[in-house]
């Protein structure tokens, strides 16, 4: 097991990457990316059994991840590159003409680590279920992970998928909700409240876990718990209590940075708060 302190250092570098990428592109979604960075680092660097150097679309014999809230692309690309899927220098091409690092993830440009296009919300859990069903048919014991935004849960398709997975015992699947309580237009409670989210997943027939989404030790512990609940006839979901903009003081506590890039001065202020640990791209 990796040292949680080391993984925390990776998270800090990922946050630097996110800030520099969205600043370099003058567009993107820093808030949610910063909030979910710790989960992605824990997943890719500690939990998942995968082979970054030999990516192939089918992913047989490997754990598979689907980012349903594709606007967190900056976080995913950083973690993919820091895990070894592609050189981190390529992060500088984010959202620029000709890049493999499209604004939202896609397969068309051939970026290793991406197996389906996402961005139009609500679709990733269904895809993850399909991958999980294929693994069952192939008697492949590896797991499927899927991250969704909390605002994304307003999409009806998510609940079609939730119903299917429970009814059909898709128990090799671990979903997670980036539960930061914010979306573009404001707080979820103002825009479209989710009510008792834990109870909702529970009555849909899922095993519900909760984690401190910006606490590396708690994330790893909860992900390990989640794996221990797989193969028991019910799908598992983790509610990640995260903070949008985590790690940069002026980006926290607001929905303002959901889809706005920091300017050069704001970028400098943000980077002052994030130590360069692995080396900038």
């Amino acid at each position, binding site marked *: 097991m990796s040292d949680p302190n080391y993984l925390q250092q990776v998270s800090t570098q990922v946050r630097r990457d996110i800030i520099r990428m969205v600043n370099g592109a003058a567009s993107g979604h820093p808030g949610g990316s910063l909030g979910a960075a710790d989960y992605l680092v824990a997943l890719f660097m500690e939990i998942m059994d995968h082979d970054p150097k030999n990516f192939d679309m089918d992913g047989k014999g490997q754990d598979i991840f689907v980012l349903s809230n594709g606007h967190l692309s900056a976080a995913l690309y950083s973690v993919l590159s820091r895990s070894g899927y592609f050189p981190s220098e390529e992060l500088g091409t984010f959202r620029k003409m000709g890049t493999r690092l499209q604004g939202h993830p896609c397969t068309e440009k051939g970026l290793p680590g991406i197996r389906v296009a996402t*961005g*139009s919300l609500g*679709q990733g859990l269904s895809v993850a279920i399909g*991958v999980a*069903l*294929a693994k069952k048919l192939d008697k492949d014991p590896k797991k499927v992970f899927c991250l969704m935004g909390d605002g994304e849960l307003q999409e009806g398709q998510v609940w079609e998928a939730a119903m299917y997975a429970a009814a059909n015992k898709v128990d090799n699947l671990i979903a997670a909700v980036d539960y930061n309580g914010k979306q573009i237009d404001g707080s979820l409670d103002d825009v479209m409240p989710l009510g008792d989210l834990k109870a909702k997943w529970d009555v849909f027939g899922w095993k519900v876990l909760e984690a401190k989404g910006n606490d590396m030790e708690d994330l790893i512990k909860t992900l390990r718990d989640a794996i221990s609940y797989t193969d028991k006839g019910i799908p598992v979901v983790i509610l990640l209590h995260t903070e949008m903009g985590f790690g940069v003081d002026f980006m926290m506590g607001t929905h303002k940075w959901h889809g706005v890039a920091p300017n050069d001065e704001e970028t400098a202020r943000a980077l002052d708060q994030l130590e360069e640990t692995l080396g900038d791209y």
Partner: protein
Amino acid sequence: MTQTATVEKKATRAGFGEALLELGHKNPMVVALCADLTGSLKMDAFAKAFPDRFFQAGIAEANMIGMAAGLSIGGKIPFTGTFANFSTGRVYDQIRQSVAYSDKNVKICASHAGLSLGEDGATHQILEDIGLMKMLPGMTVINPCDFNQTKAATHAIAEHRGPVYLRFGRPDWPNFTPADQKFEIGKAICMREGHDVSIIATGHMVWIALKAAEELAMQGVSAEIIDIHTIKPLDEDAIVSSLQKTGCAVTAEEHSIHGGLGDSIAQCLARKIPAPVEMVAVNDQFGESGKPLELMSKYGLDTPDVVAAAIRAMSRK
């Protein structure tokens, strides 16, 4: 000519169901998903024979399309089945992002397309689906003309790598193509040679076009009938070589005049061999309840409509 007089009738959807069952035996990678219309899609034989490879999605088409995309990531060849309306318009964004843009090897199989669905009325009679699907980059669009051709097409798409929209219908319909026909995706079939007018038809309308050719022959007109089972990619060479002979065209489809076969043919001719085109299609309207043949007559998709369009096209040469 009396070749259209006595032909056995069978539904195109039954051809799909038979082929799917055969594929189940032949190719272990083939899996099927259905959204609560297993009997209507004739998928019940597959579901019974291969319960582990059949996924009942319930009335949740969006999730069905997403699961199909996911199954293909694991190397499976998923066939989804529901009515054409629910296969396209209802799930357009799911097909666009999770299947087409992601280049997934998913076969979207759609029954009850067009007016010939009949009594259920306009809510179910989609006339826009060819247009919706052909607009998607990389999507192959196929509308076979009878039972045998639907069966052959179902086998062919399993061998083809990439997303496919396979459109067929509900009613019993003349089964006039040979059972052992060679079906090549993107390759038009000349059903009858002629030199005065090219009648280019797809789906159920191929049969209507053949009947129209017989009537035209009695009037001394020699019509060439081309079965365009694959609307995309379009067999432009076949269209051009027919037009070089005839100099004018009629298109015939059980679809809106906007976005369907007629548009594709007109675009091809405009680019390659400008010529008069008349279109037999539904004129920017929704359908309604009724018997299939009554509806096709009311909405201008019957034999006399094709005959009249041929005369008009020839007069404009």
